[in-house]
């Protein structure tokens, strides 16, 4: 029931995308089928990351505020590992399922040549993307060391990022493109890999050889997030219980 609900709640976004394309035809040289590929890839990535990182998402509310983090720290395993395994939410399967469905639709609408390199690229992009979203949630959790609460502001990065990365990068203003490439490297796990899968040259001029390397940025982001996390754990003082 919840899975179905999740599926419906996230499917409506693609309805909006579809309506815009059917009204306007195309945008920035992209058709609906190609845009659907961005949409599918980002949502598959985010649903996987979301399923695996619930412990970090509720870290402020459920661990720092209640003092439950003390118990986590006492166990002889890495705190981050314990949090990642805190709770796996199957209701998030809804987003995953609809992502896969949209991927199938996109593959029918545009001729995607799903050869070995394309499949490998898709999996590699999803891996990098999961690392990136994981990094964002770790950063959100790290903020809780200072604020004691989980703040909604992090949704700007996670859900807002999903929202932004569902569309091809070249439709945005320059400053926003830079933010999505160098600040929060969502473009590196969605836009550039999709170009590589479609075997299209970048309309913005990134060289072709660079495209397969871009998902590495997700792992770099995750590494930096864990550095911040360690600084946070070092200054952690329990709230008691």
């Amino acid at each position, binding site marked *: 029931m919840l899975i179905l*609900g999740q599926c419906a709640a996230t499917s409506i976004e693609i309805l909006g995308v579809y309506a815009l394309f059917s009204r306007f035809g195309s945008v920035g040289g992209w058709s609906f089928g190609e845009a659907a590929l961005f949409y599918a890839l980002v949502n598959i990535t985010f649903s996987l990351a979301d399923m695996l990182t619930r412990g970090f998402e509720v870290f402020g509310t459920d661990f720092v505020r209640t003092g439950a983090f003390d118990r986590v720290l006492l166990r002889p395993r890495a705190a981050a590992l314990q949090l990642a395994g805190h709770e796996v939410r199957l209701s998030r399967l809804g987003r995953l399922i609809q992502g896969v469905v949209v991927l199938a639709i996109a593959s029918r609408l545009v001729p995607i040549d799903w050869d070995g390199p394309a499949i490998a690229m898709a999996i590699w992009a999803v891996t990098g993307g999961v690392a990136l979203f994981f990094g964002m949630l770790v950063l959100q959790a790290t903020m809780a060391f200072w604020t004691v609460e989980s703040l909604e*502001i992090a949704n700007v990065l996670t859900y807002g990022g999903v929202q932004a990365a569902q569309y091809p990068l070249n439709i945005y203003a320059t400053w926003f493109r830079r933010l999505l490439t160098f600040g929060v490297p969502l473009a590196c796990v969605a836009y550039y890999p999709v170009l590589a899968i479609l075997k299209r040259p970048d309309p913005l001029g990134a060289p072709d050889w660079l495209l397969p390397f871009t998902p590495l940025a997700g792992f770099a982001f995750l590494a930096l997030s864990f550095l911040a996390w360690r600084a946070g754990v070092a200054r952690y003082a329990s709230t008691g219980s």
Partner: protein
Amino acid sequence: MTMLPLRPYLAAFRARFQLLLEYRVAALAGFATQLWWGGIRIMVFAAFYGAHAAAAPISLADAITYVWLGQALLALQPWVADPEIGHAIRTGGIGYDRLRPLDAYGFWYARTLGWMLARALPRALLMVLAAGIILPLVGLDEWAWRPPASVTAALLFIPAFVLMTALAAAVLMLANVVVAASLNERGVNSILTPLVIVLSGSLLPLNFYPDAWQSWLHLQPLAGIVDIPFRIYFADLAGGAAAQGLALQAGWTAVLIGIGRLAMARMMRRLEMQGG
């Protein structure tokens, strides 16, 4: 030390104060999210308009105003049942409501209205400040939230806003009754949210959807929550069309309140108390 007896009071005051501060930070964080969200939606609109503006049913300036209005009044949209009702049902607190010498529907309706408005109005004011005043001041005039199209539009928007709030509360009341009957709000919310997002016009103004759907999209009850009042605001609906829109809003509000009262009376008769 003469200060000593005061210490617990000071501590209690500080704790309470900091809690309030925490809520304020949370509200500001929510507002920042809404601002950011609106920005992304506007950029997407701008990109589509850039290529084929002629294909659009409303101007880009109006579409931008539509987005900001929607972000400002987000908390008025009935996409989750009132959490207090679910709580009252599970704890048995609902029993007190049955004992009150009041009309139970009216009592809950008023509480739901209060809950919605208290969340919506502060954020709406902040959004006027940010998108209506600051954006033009920093030179982003074309991205700004514009004032109503005319004095007539502004005057017509007042009843449209009142009816939109009343209608949204009536929808929520139906959801609340289902929550009370099923003892669980997650199922209701998971169906309510997507319905409201699409059919109210908050995902996209309704006339962006394919032409074949238009007639029923504009007649269904949820259009009165977002689409009708907002189009009255920028005078896309004017004169007779505006009057028709207001009549639709009022009609659906009356119908949904009627259904809600019946459903609630039935539910209250069958209610089994949870122990407390």
